[in-house]
């Protein structure tokens, strides 16, 4: 099967392979007519690939193979840290294959230019009432067409968002956010079990995610600290504080999503990394290691400079 037109922006009309460490997933991909290979049987990366790792070993193998391969273009989907199920991976793959990469990368360019050219921004639309300022000289993470014109191995998320990350808590946060946002969904990520976190968090967060997907939520933030998450007037901030670990309720990420193509297909009940690129904004707490990294997705929110 030839890759769909949209993804040919990245891979041209050359052969594209789906790589994974789950035979069940690969079987489903083959049924869709896609070229597949099990990562454990490869000595080098295929020239063009989309990789779904269902385990940390497969993720490591992805990088080992990439190091051994001179010419490669690869989109990496770290399924193991989100939801390593065949259903979630197939959902992600189908969304991915329907995306307009050219449009997303082009939108990243204009968003990047806007963020770098201004300091204070108003968030509006979809019930948003918020402001964000970015510190002078703070640089966002962004991916432009020229970054993927030659060899690359990129996490799938990078194609669909421009984001500021507060990685090191000892350093100042590169942005300051205050206001309220309507939340359509959350994503939760923990890269490995952390014995310092309370038991049962995974189940509680799945329950919270399902509630928000069904009923929506209202997130309030003051000076980069989440002060409230309400679903139908019920407060859930204590669960967030427990789940985020020592980084607590302080924001660790502000991002602008640029993926228009998934708006009608998105399922907020699925913990898929593809969801976070949804056009609009998202905020996050936690670092995914000392505690959960939780993204709060607020679609259809516009970000405009305040002059």
């Amino acid at each position, binding site marked *: 099967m030839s890759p769909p037109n949209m993804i040919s922006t990245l891979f041209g009309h050359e052969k594209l392979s789906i790589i994974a460490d789950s035979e069940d997933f690969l079987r489903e991909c083959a049924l869709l007519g896609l070229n597949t290979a099990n990562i454990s049987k490869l000595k080098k990366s295929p020239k063009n690939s989309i990789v779904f*790792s269902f385990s940390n070993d497969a*993720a*490591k193998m992805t990088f080992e193979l990439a190091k051994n391969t001179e010419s490669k273009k690869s989109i990496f989907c*770290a399924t193991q840290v989100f939801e390593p199920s065949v259903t979630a991976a197939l959902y992600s793959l189908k969304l991915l294959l329907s995306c307009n990469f050219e449009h997303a990368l082009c939108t990243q360019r204009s968003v990047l*230019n806007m963020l770098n050219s201004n300091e204070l921004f108003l968030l509006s639309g979809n019930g948003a009432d918020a402001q964000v300022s970015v510190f002078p000289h703070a640089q*966002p993470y962004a991916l432009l067409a020229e*970054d993927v014109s030659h060899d690359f191995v990129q*996490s799938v998320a990078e194609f669909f968002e421009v984001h500021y990350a507060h990685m090191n808590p000892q350093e100042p946060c590169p942005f300051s956010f205050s206001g309220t946002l309507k939340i359509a969904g959350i994503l939760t990520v923990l890269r490995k079990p952390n014995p310092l976190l309370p038991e049962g968090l995974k189940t509680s967060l799945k329950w919270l995610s399902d509630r928000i997907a069904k009923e929506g939520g209202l997130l309030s933030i003051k000076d980069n600290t989440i002060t409230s998450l309400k679903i139908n007037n019920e407060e859930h901030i204590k669960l967030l504080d427990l789940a985020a670990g020592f980084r607590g309720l302080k924001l660790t990420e502000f991002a602008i999503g640029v993926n228009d193509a998934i708006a009608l297909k998105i399922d907020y009940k699925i913990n898929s990394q593809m969801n976070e690129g949804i056009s609009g904004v998202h905020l996050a707490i936690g670092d995914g290691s000392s505690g959960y990294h939780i993204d709060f997705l607020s679609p259809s929110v516009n970000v405009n400079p305040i002059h």
Partner: protein
Amino acid sequence: MKNEKVVKEKLNRITSGPDNFGWAPLAWAHTEE
């Protein structure tokens, strides 16, 4: 002579890669012990 004002795009950015991963799980897999 016509004066043309050229507005240059400001494209300073961090691009994910082996040294700068942001929150991309790419990094987490890569650095996992």
